[in-house]
């Protein structure tokens, strides 16, 4: 598997199809992995792929949108690429996607690997990349399914319980905006969270302001979040952000029969409408 990636990367760089391949290499803790940008064919042996390759590298493509770039991408990452293509942030002709079949990665922190899978993988059944130029691994033929048992659990709480649940989490938020920085879908030059005039999110770290940030961050990703789980992975205070994102994912699927990032050309649900929409409200 790793050999296949290295050979392809080498070929791409040697033939000058791309001038950079973004992939993974071992991190300095000798345990986990980290992103790497390979520019020289001689360097391709640094590339690896294993259960520690958690990062969604598609975010890095935005800054290289005008340059031919190769990328190693897991299925969830390829959805990110599709999202960015759909939103006209990337040019397909500048991309070479080395898609990797993935059956889930491991929960990693610096210097430690847990034996369990992160939330995103526990509920993921998209094991084959949705867009690729070269595929590593055997494609999984069975159709992806959806499991939202974690969301239903919270939906079934009493309003008071739910309020308490989220207060407990959001009160911890230090608004480092790491969730935004790492997100492939967050590429605004100036985020509403940074804006001073109008001041959407106040400067103080207070529950109300945290709530606005976390609510609107997620809502800006509604019908866009591709469930790569990077926000949750990066969060220094361990807010279960995938529980927020996946609620919107569940409702989007249910209301609009839409999954972000599956198709490059599809019109997202908030860019269109149907007169006969049956959404359980305002008909």
């Amino acid at each position, binding site marked *: 598997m790793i050999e296949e990636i290295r050979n392809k990367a080498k070929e791409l760089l040697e033939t000058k199809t791309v001038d950079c391949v973004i992939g993974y290499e071992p991190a300095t803790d000798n345990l986990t992995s980290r992103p790497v940008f390979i520019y020289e064919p001689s360097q391709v042996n640094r590339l690896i792929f294993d259960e520690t390759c958690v990062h969604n590298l598609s975010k890095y493509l935005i800054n290289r949108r005008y340059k031919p770039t190769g990328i190693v991408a897991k299925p969830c990452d390829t959805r990110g690429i599709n999202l960015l293509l759909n939103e006209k*942030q990337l040019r397909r002709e500048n991309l070479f996607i080395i898609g990797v079949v993935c059956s889930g990665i491991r929960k990693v922190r610096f210097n430690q690997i847990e034996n369990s899978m992160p939330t995103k993988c526990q509920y993921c059944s998209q094991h084959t990349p949705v867009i690729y130029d070269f595929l590593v691994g055997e494609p999984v033929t069975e159709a992806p399914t959806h499991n939202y048992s974690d969301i239903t659990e919270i939906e079934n709480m009493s309003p008071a319980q739910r309020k308490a649940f989220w207060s407990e989490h959001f009160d911890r938020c230090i608004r480092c905006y790491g969730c935004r920085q790492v997100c492939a879908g967050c*590429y*605004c030059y*100036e985020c509403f969270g940074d804006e001073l005039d109008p001041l959407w999110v106040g400067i103080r770290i207070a529950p109300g302001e945290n709530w606005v940030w976390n609510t609107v961050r997620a809502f800006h990703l509604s019908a866009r979040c591709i469930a790569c789980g990077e926000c949750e992975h990066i969060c220094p205070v361990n807010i279960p952000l995938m529980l927020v994102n996946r609620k919107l994912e569940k409702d989007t699927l249910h209301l609009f029969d839409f999954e972000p990032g599956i198709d490059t050309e599809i019109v997202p649900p*908030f860019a269109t409408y149907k007169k006969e929409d049956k959404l359980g409200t305002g008909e």
Partner: protein
Amino acid sequence: MARVGVFVCHCGTNIAGVVNIPEVLEAAEKMPMVVSATDNKYSCSEPGQASIREAIIENNLNRVIVAACSPRMHEITFRRALASAGLNPYLLEMANIREQCSWVHSDNKEIATNKAIEIIKMAVAKVIRHEPLYPRQVGITKRALVIGGGITGIQTALDIANAGYGVVLVEREPSIGGRMAQLDKTFPTLDCSACILTPKMVDLSQHPKIKLMTYAEVKKVTGFIGNFEVEILHKAKKVDHLKCIGCGICWQKCPEKVPSEFDLGLGKRTAIYIPFAQAVPPKPVIDLSHCRYTKYLTWVATGQEGKKPPECRICEKLCPTAAIAWDQEEQLFTEKFGTIVVATGYQTYDYSHYKEYGSRDFADVITGLQLERLMSASGPTGGEVTRLSDGSHPKTVAFVCCVGSRDQQRGRPYCSKVCCMYTAKQAIMLKEHDPEVQCYIFYIDVRAGGKDFEEFYLRAIDEAGVIYIKGRPSKIYQDGKKLIVLGEDTLMGRPVEIPVDLVVLATGMEPSAGADELARNLNISYDTYNFMVEAHPKLRPVETHTDGIFVAGACVGPRDIPECVAQGSAAAAKVAALFSQDTLTTEPLIAVVNQARCIGCLLCVTICPFKAVDYQTTQDGRLIAATNESLCKGCGLCIAACRPKAIDLRGFTNQQILDEVAGLWL
């Protein structure tokens, strides 16, 4: 620094009788950036407005709150008052303390007073963020495009031209005239259709202000009211109409005979043809799909396989003016217009879906429009109604109403409006042609709503002896020379079985083919049947939601001739009113893009109902959105959709609305 003046109106006792004005003034004075708070008995009166003007000048105010009635009532009045004091009129904000406060909370004066104070507080928070705005003037191209050369389009073009403005009429067929030219007589007056139409066609063709473009189609429309750019495709006629004198020798001598579209397949025309004798322009086009010389050329070009077709060119040899132009190709022209009127009309429903009526398999089952051609003196039979199968004169005729109308199962639930009357007319005419004829009309309801319509329907029964049978026939089948119509007389509650010589299906109206494509090109709405949608069915019947584009006639819905003419004139009046101005003033309350923030996802381009957002490419290759000030109507849909807040709506900016909300908790 904003200097806000608050003017609280008593509106007689309408406000002052409920709201405690002194208390409101006291509170208003303490609000941020408020430098004066005064009251007026009637702010909208001349003394009231004068006091506002004086206060603006005296206190050097640069933002104004008028706490009075609804802005829908007097916003414009007070904007003018600001302007007359030398202030930008858009620095006004109205606090609605009458309709939305004193009038609805008269039961509790204390609560009403508090609410009035809060409403003013919110308005102050918003007005501080107001910026001066300036309307723009755009020029108008005083030339109208009329699409469709039926009676509606002809009337529209004539009326606009008679008002003194230039008109281009585009018709995709070789002649204008439309459906009305195909009719024999019109109900209920039994005027000869051609006799009243053709003079209008000639008027149109000779009018100095009208340019007629037949055999042409509208391909692409860009721009906005006053300034449309339209690409018009001129199909290859292969005849130079500047040289042609319309002598007719070519179409008399052309050896290739094909079924005539104008006669609905009942008669023949030649490959070089005019659709009918009174065609305007009276000059032919060559139908390349049937022309022998064209076939010969194709045979040469494709390697001369098979039998050699004759190298005909008879028209060219006989033409006295050498008008045949084989090298003529289709051409695309771009023209500028100030307004566009759509009058694309209708076609009749294709009844091949009606298997029970033979799906076009029986020669003696014809449509109402085909019967018109048979009855017309200039038609293929010279006005003699004969059966297509054996040429005999039918003595018993059954009419079937509502074929492709009022039929849910065929997806045509609407009433086509004219069929009840035209079947009655045709039955009367058949009786006049031949007194021995007996007509039966199968109907669902007879809808005779119109001037003299009911009388006309009764005349069919009383004078022409037509037998009306309530019920939709279930089957038509051939039995020897006769056609048997099976149905149920639902009034009598018993089945009927009538052997007849001829069956006439009153096929309904549907929009002309390609109406949906045209509507998309024009960015106007159309319904599920492809009828155009008017801006308001009652009050704006010929306008569309796209400014400067009008609709008239049967492209909007089933209409009879007088209605079409009225609508054509109505559209023309709208056009003339628009052209009577030299410039158009555009509303400044529109969306503007902050290009530095735009990330180029172009969601706004997709979402805009008016195609008012387009995109540009910057020097460094980024895509960025850009709004067209003339197309934008200021709905704000794009603003709510824009994640980076790169687009904002003047007069209702994010900052203004947020501050208005936050003002409540100040």
